[in-house]
């Protein structure tokens, strides 16, 4: 079993832990993840904020390379990259004129046939069906599943789960033995791309999300996006300072929780790289 993967810049850098857990799980389930050769950055928020054309061209190059290399299905673990790629694919599909223009810009052929999978879809399709056999350490914890913005919006384009009270991640967590709590902040924004330029906003928004999850008794918050993770985990000192408290809720990538449940070690899933210490008592 071989499928493509677009790690994106974060998984290559600040979210190495996420990357490690994705690859570790894939290995457990005998899936070979093939990186799109010579991939580039998707442009993230910056590109569509400043230059729409650029924000389509960068993802289009990635998708074109996937096509060129025969990768029909590509896993995009980063929710932000996922959103950029799907939105681009959609835009180029409905606007043939833009598509032709972009093809000239990237100097590559582009058909738009790649099937893009977000991490939950990937888990659902390739991991969960075989999970029962491999489940050695059920993740018996109360968890708050945090989807963030980019996994579910804009719903009409992504066409994934529902944008209010989504359930897919909760389902995955249930399958590995966790107890997802009722969590109304599931899809509230964490501050996303403001992690450097407006730390105050990030602190406030991320802080409210953590506060609500802690208040409702969550032991872990589960995320599927490196941006969310860095805001909720790396920015924790700022958050605590802003709220003048000490939130200790650890933030796990969904793949880390799943990895632990199938018996991978904390190190194999990159827990040592977190800023907020993770104590798993098993």
């Amino acid at each position, binding site marked *: 079993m071989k499928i493509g993967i677009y790690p994106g*810049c*974060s998984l*290559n*850098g*600040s*979210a*190495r832990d996420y990357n490690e857990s994705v690859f570790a799980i894939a290995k457990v389930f005998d899936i070979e993840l093939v990186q799109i050769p*010579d*991939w*580039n*950055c998707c*442009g*993230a*928020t*910056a*590109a*569509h*904020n*400043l*230059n*729409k*054309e*650029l*924000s389509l*061209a*960068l993802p289009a*190059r990635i998708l074109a390379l996937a096509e060129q290399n025969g990768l029909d299905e590509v896993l995009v673990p980063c929710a932000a990259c996922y959103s950029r790629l799907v939105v681009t694919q959609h835009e180029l599909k409905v606007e043939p004129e833009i598509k032709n223009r972009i093809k*000239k*810009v*990237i*100097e590559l052929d582009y058909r738009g046939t790649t099937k893009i999978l977000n991490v939950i879809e990937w888990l659902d399709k390739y991991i969960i069906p075989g999970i029962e056999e491999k489940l050695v350490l059920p993740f018996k914890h109360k968890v708050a599943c945090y989807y963030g*913005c*980019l996994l*579910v*919006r*804009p*719903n*009409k384009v992504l066409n994934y789960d529902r*944008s*209010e009270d989504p359930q897919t991640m909760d389902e995955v967590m249930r399958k590995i033995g966790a107890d997802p709590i009722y969590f109304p902040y599931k*899809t*509230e*924004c964490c*501050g*996303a*791309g*403001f992690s*450097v*330029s*407006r*730390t105050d*906003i990030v602190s406030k*928004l991320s802080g409210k999300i953590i506060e609500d999850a802690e208040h409702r008794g969550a032991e872990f918050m589960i995320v599927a996006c490196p941006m969310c993770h860095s805001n909720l985990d*790396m920015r924790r*000192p700022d958050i605590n300072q802003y709220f003048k408290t000490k939130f200790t809720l650890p933030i796990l990538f969904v793949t880390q929780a799943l990895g632990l449940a199938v018996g991978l070690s904390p190190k194999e899933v990159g827990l*040592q*790289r*977190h*800023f907020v210490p993770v104590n798993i008592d098993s």
Partner: protein
Amino acid sequence: MSHSSHQIERNSLAFAIEKNVDVHTQKCYQCGKCSAGCPVATEMDMPPSYVMRLLQTENQAHDENILQSQSIWLCISCEMCLSRCPMEIDIPSMMDFLRQRSIKQKMVNPKAKNIVAFHKSFLNTIKYTGRLYELGLIIDYKRRSLNMLQDITLAPKMISRGKLHFIPEMIKGTPQISGIFKKTSKKEV
């Protein structure tokens, strides 16, 4: 069979938005649901529905106020507004457009300069390497924002956790990437 429409000459911002991103501001009936759900509405000098109303007036002074506002830079593109707007008005796309317009017309709000600086730094790093070079980004951003002290404690922690590279990863297609930047920068807003 059609009647001649009574189109008046329009050169408003609302008209530009209609033409460029196909967002019809007149469809907004000012329910305010976007502002009610926007995570940064309280930080904004004009919440999203207020921006919509100003646009509807097609008044030049209002248009300028919008382009000079902080709001357009505070919008995080979280898409909450779009997902709940009863009229499905694509405010996030409109905000993208307004930001680009604001830069082009040199109207960027001084208080938003950090945000613009960050975006520019971000694009700058990928322009030359093809991928994000986080250390390079931080250095470039500090140079632009003159915000030397911010995050001084974060970097060492990141380094110790293997989350920050010292050397940029250059992709083979960098010439292609700069080509993309060059070609797309010409596109008018």
